[in-house]
């Protein structure tokens, strides 16, 4: 946090009193959309990785506090107001590679330094939506297409593959809703 604020790409818009720290924030920022990243006012983005691919778009509301979160975006991440994301949590809106084995061979070749511009096959991506007042714990993972309802509490280390209703508390891998049988 005592590290100096870093330079940001031109297609990033941030609101007043928002602070971005850490020298790797935009190391994997490749989006050509404008704006690709919109952050509201009064946010603290400490050591966050904004790994936003060519067509990716990320919007973040006001009064959010992220610590070393990893945001991996091919398509869209929508994050509301007063969202807290703990250390080393990952949010991804894509599988990043095809599921079918034959398609994956094509993709592996396209990703190789020998590909010379060969196109990659289509890859499944689906926006992730995180509503207001959500708390996401350290080491948690949120995967593609998930919507987390307002005020939900994602326990440390949880791996979330399905939608979480507003106000729910989830934990575990795969994440399950906490009830009398669950921890606490």
């Amino acid at each position, binding site marked *: 946090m*005592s590290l100096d604020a870093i330079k940001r790409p031109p297609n990033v818009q941030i609101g007043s009193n928002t602070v971005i720290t850490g020298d790797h924030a935009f190391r994997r920022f490749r989006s050509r959309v404008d704006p690709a990243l919109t952050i509201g006012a*009064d946010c603290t983005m400490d050591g966050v990785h904004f790994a936003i691919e060519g067509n990716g778009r990320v919007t973040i509301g006001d009064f959010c*506090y992220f610590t070393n979160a990893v945001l991996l975006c091919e398509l869209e991440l929508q994050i509301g107001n007063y969202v807290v994301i703990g250390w080393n949590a990952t949010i991804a809106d894509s599988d990043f590679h095809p599921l079918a084995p034959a398609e994956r061979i094509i993709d592996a070749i396209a990703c190789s330094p020998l590909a010379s511009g060969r196109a990659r096959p289509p890859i499944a991506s689906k926006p992730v939506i995180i509503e207001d007042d959500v*708390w996401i714990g*350290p080491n948690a993972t949120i995967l593609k297409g998930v919507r987390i309802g307002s005020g939900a509490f994602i326990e*440390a*280390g949880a791996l979330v593959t399905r939608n979480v209703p507003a106000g729910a508390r989830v934990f*575990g*891998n795969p994440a399950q809703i906490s009830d009398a049988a669950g921890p606490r």
Partner: protein
Amino acid sequence: MTPDRKLPWDWYPGTIPENVSIDETAWVETSFSFLFYRSLAATGVRVGRGSSTYIGTMFDVGREGKVTVGDYTLVNGARIICDAEIEIGDYGLISWNVVLMDSYRLSSDAATRRRELEAVARRSPRILEGDSSPRPIHIGRNVWIGFDSCVLPGVTIGEGSIIGARSVVFEDVPPFTVVAGNPARVIKKLDPEVIKDDRP
């Protein structure tokens, strides 16, 4: 440590805070581990004889937090989030990307949390502090915690136990027990063999 509390081998231009006690035989790789340290306790962090803390370790210790690392304990890279007390016993092995947290740092009530986040945004630096109701973590001697694991507020881990990689520990772990998974569950018991305490 030099008289002005620098580490001669350090790559980071920081110092070891005054209320941190590091045994002269212990090895702390970098003062960067104290970037988020703000404890006002008489001794906010104590590192015991022959112990070592490596580069990924962060003592994210709040104003009233106290962290104790016992003797001959290896902390490879833990995020230690402490607002009350975290105690790691002797002969501990703590792997990389481990989270030990005795506090959620903010209220569990959304309306209260909004006010807390508004207060954080007015602070410089942006320290995360609120109504956290911390609950101490006690890790007994000879405990091994595998990489990427999380130990949550209020947990006690008994002597000699093993926490498998990527576990999330919600409940107390009895002595000489292997747990793994998320949430962590008991896998098996270990032989509570007593060895001679043959310390250098």
